[in-house]
């Protein structure tokens, strides 16, 4: 049987213009692999947004990384100062992965 290993999945909802910065911040704490999912629309404290807005400034992406607990904590610490001002929505969940040594 294929072995399953417990890891963390961190999801960060972020403005599209800030994705590159987030990727660099994540790489800085050792999270160099990630995926960006496409989002269509949303509603938050700052009001509604849609991907259709002509100004790319309000489009958002979901940054997803599967990694170990320590790195997740390091990333959160690195983001701490910006959580509020960038309006990041961060969730962390337990996942089982195959080929656990990769993450």
């Amino acid at each position, binding site marked *: 049987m294929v072995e399953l290993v417990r890891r963390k999945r961190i999801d960060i909802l972020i*403005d599209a*213009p*800030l994705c*590159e*910065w987030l990727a660099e*911040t994540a790489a800085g704490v050792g999270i160099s692999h990630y995926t960006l999912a496409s989002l269509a629309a949303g509603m938050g404290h*700052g*009001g*509604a947004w*849609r*991907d*259709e*807005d*002509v*100004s*790319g*400034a*309000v489009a958002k992406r979901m940054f997803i990384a599967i990694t170990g607990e320590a790195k997740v904590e390091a990333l959160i610490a*690195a983001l701490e*100062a*910006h959580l509020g*001002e*960038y*309006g990041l929505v961060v969730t962390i969940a337990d996942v089982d992965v195959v080929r656990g040594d990769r993450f």
Partner: protein
Amino acid sequence: MAEDIDLSTIDTLLSPVILFFILGALAAAARSDLSVPEPIAKGMSLYLMAAIGLKGGVQVSAAGMSSDMVGAAIAGMALSFGLPFVAFALLRSWGGLDRMNSGAVAAHYGSVSIVTFVTASEALTRSGAEPAGYMVAVLALMETPAILTGLLLAQNGLKQKSGAPGGHIWREVFLNGSVVLLLGAFVVGLVIGKDKYAAISPVFTTGFSGILCLFLLDMGLVAVRRLRESRGMTLRLASLGIALPLINGSLGLGAALLLGLHAGTAAAFAMLAASASYIAVPAAMRMALPKADPGIYLSMSLAVTFPFNIIVGIPLFAALASRFAG
């Protein structure tokens, strides 16, 4: 002898381009589900930028460089640097915004709206007062200086918080896609000249007005939807969204008259000053001033100033330029 621009307000309002804008605005106001897919809107805006860049370049390659051009470029950059100070003062006092948001909004009003320029050019050309080709380069040069001023004002001097997305902001500002495409297409136009342009003019010249109609349909939808979703907009801010284009446009027209630009070019110059960015600057502000509220700056520039300029600003400054320019 003043050049005469045959551009009565009512006639402008009844041009297909403006009517499509109004159609989009009404559809959004009635909460219709009409919408233009985002990639199509972005594709049309790339097309419009390539087209005006090319046409400007081809025109300059035929007309040759002129001293007007240098004057307009310097005046344009100076306005882009300077106009945010006026806006900032009004936004803080009358508008009641804090320093951060005032700086962010001010940057938008110093910078320019490409679509406003394109619509103005189209209207002026239709009325027989085509702006000079080099105005495309002036447009590109005016995009960025205001961002600097806005940041200075917002932060009370430029500082860089550690860990903030610094380098990216400046790349966004100077190598912004729209600046690069506009200037790039302008240079392509300069290099190829009129003869080689002939092969591609069916797409870039003949198709221009029609595509602009569809693009403004989308802009009408987007502007009104943005207005409806606005939080943080006040009546005072909305009034500034109308006052600022009038003030800035008048300053721009004044500069154009001092430079002795001809009527069509002067009107286009005034519209650059009057217009507010809603593409390049918002993205830069989202990075540089993340705490500033995009609801405020996008609503003011996109939902108030843009429609005002399209419907009132263009015919107004065209008429003024026609009266005063030589």
